[in-house]
């Protein structure tokens, strides 16, 4: 208990109007506007990919691919929708594809790999509470892990999480409840 971590608000709460303006500018040929969008969301998208795939190299590739697809399909972006939800949806689908491919190749029920970044630095920080929480999230099954990651990124906007995962709202709430239960158990000292 007592996870007093350095408070850093999730960087996803950008005003939708500004995002719309950046999208409009990008469509008008302003490359810097898209650069601003990438700068605004790349960390959250990478986080979602890294938590879902548990592989930093694959997460990088998935993040790049997500922004590439978003850029090519930007003209089809529905005005009034949230860019964060859209880019998370694209990223999540790409992650699902990668997980499915991994499953086909390895034949595992739940194909997860250890993050190659885990080394002496990780061991040294084992007592760090953020690391404990992150490790507990990594131990969750994929469906709970993704829900809890999106809950972290999107806040308590269950409908947005349901949109990204293409799941009914009730299922999202159930998954979240169970994920939290498992996290609480894992973090109980």
């Amino acid at each position, binding site marked *: 208990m007592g*996870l007093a*971590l350095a408070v850093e608000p*999730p960087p996803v709460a950008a005003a939708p109007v500004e995002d719309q303006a950046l999208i409009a500018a990008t469509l008008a040929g302003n*490359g810097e506007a*898209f650069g601003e969008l990438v700068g605004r969301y790349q*960390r959250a998208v990478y986080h979602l990919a890294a*938590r879902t795939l548990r592989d930093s190299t694959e997460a990088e590739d998935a993040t*790049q691919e997500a922004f590439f697809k978003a850029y090519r399909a930007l003209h089809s972006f529905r005005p009034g929708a949230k860019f964060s939800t859209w880019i998370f949806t694209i990223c999540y689908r790409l992650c699902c594809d990668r997980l499915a491919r991994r499953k086909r190749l390895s034949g595992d029920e739940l194909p997860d790999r250890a993050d190659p970044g885990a080394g002496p630095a990780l061991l040294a920080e084992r007592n760090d509470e953020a690391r404990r929480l992150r490790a507990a999230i990594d131990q969750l099954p994929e469906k709970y892990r993704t829900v809890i990651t999106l*809950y972290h990124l999107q806040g308590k906007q269950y409908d947005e999480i349901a949109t990204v995962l293409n799941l009914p709202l009730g299922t999202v709430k159930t998954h979240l409840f169970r994920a939290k239960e498992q996290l609480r158990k894992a973090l109980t000292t």
Partner: protein
Amino acid sequence: MMMDDDALDRALAALPLDEPPADLQQRILARTVYAPRAALRGWELWVIAIAAALVGWFGWVLLSAPHAQERITDTLARVIAVSGLDSMNTVLWLAAGVSATWWIVQLSVPDRRRRIEVR
């Protein structure tokens, strides 16, 4: 001791996001806004490919017909005769016309309307 829901929410909210590699944004931009533009679009490539296939097919049909070489030679000779291209005068006038057209295209005529707007 069991952690309560609020404490878990606070811990989740405080959890720092994974840090992407420093050059990730540059790599994304290099693949998107700064990617070299393709000379032709996808549909243009399709049109060119279909047109080339049709030309190839038509050429094959012509050449595979019986006595194709003689027929093609005859047809070409008839076209040249009918259009008057076998006469030196016609060829000279045609060359003069093409040359004059080319020179007119090369001339830069000032845009009168634009000058009026500037004033």
